[in-house]
């Protein structure tokens, strides 16, 4: 899979928040075999604890995808993106502009505006968006080469609430990497996303809040691979009625 100019073998992107401890986070990153981890920026006091997290990120040896989580306007997101680029020395940005706090739904108007300005400034924008086709088109026009539609509200673990819309996105954007970002709760959700032809899955809470995050990270890694293989293997058509799999021809006539 190619995201912008970067070739990746893993199709699982992993968030780094809410783990029980830094060591569990590091073990989960390794177990997931991910190559891309998401991070954030927050206020810090002098001699705070952030130095430890920064060292952990270096130890994880993954591509860093900083987010603009918590931003509610294009201008906030743009400033945050620039700060992230300066700090993490990457031009990748997971662009989140939240419009509505209860559902953490993207404000797609501000999102497109921010994407336009950031792409022009040389950022490689990974927009967290809805599954709306027109918004997707606007984001591509703005200079995004990747789209990240939600599967369900962030942190809800509800799985894919509208698989038909994701299928439509796959059909409408055949050559754009599509990453389901948010809503994945279980390995079966990740498999479903990949079977729909999504290029990758980004998840955080599903692993971090599992009873055993490291095992769940491993399970998600296998799920993503299984789903991708299933998609490429071209699943059979569904049928409304039963069709015997054992040949009927030659069946003994017994009473």
């Amino acid at each position, binding site marked *: 899979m190619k995201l912008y100019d970067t070739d990746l073998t893993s199709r699982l992107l992993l968030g780094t928040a809410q783990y029980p401890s830094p060591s569990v986070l590091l073990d989960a990153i390794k177990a997931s075999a991910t190559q891309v981890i998401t991070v954030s920026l927050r206020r810090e006091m*002098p001699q705070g604890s*952030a*130095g430890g997290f920064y060292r952990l990120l270096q130890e994880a040896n993954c591509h860093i995808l900083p987010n603009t989580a918590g931003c509610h306007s294009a201008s906030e997101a743009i400033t945050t993106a620039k700060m992230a680029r300066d700090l993490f020395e990457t031009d990748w940005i997971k662009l989140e502009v939240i419009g509505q706090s209860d559902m953490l739904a993207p404000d797609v108007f501000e999102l497109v505006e921010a994407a336009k300005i950031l792409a022009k400034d040389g950022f490689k924008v990974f927009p967290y968006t809805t599954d709306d086709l027109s918004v997707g088109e606007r984001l591509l026009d703005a200079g995004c080469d990747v789209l990240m539609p939600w599967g369900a509200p962030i942190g809800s673990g509800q799985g894919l609430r509208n698989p038909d819309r994701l299928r439509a996105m796959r059909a409408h954007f055949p050559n754009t990497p599509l990453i389901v970002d948010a809503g994945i709760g279980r390995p079966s959700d990740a498999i479903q996303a990949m079977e729909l032809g999504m290029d990758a899955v980004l998840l955080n809470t599903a692993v971090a809040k599992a009873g055993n995050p490291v095992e769940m990270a491993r399970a998600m890694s296998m799920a993503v691979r299984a789903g991708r293989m299933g998609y490429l293997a071209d699943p059979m058509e569904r049928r409304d009625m039963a069709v015997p799999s054992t040949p009927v021809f030659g069946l003994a006539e017994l009473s």
Partner: protein
Amino acid sequence: MKITVNSIPHDVTGPTLHDLLVELGYITQGQPLALATALNDQFIAKSDRHEIALYSGDRVEILTPMQGG
């Protein structure tokens, strides 16, 4: 001069943004923490912190890496 850093008022000497980071302990023995800065809502690159003069009433944001999804 009075500078607000992450919403907390401080009285610092300055005169530059870099000086403020040293004065408040964000940079110790020449070793900067991994941090990013903004002044009055405008991003300031680390390479510019030595040049940027502060004025009383300025608002500074200092951000560091944090766990995120």
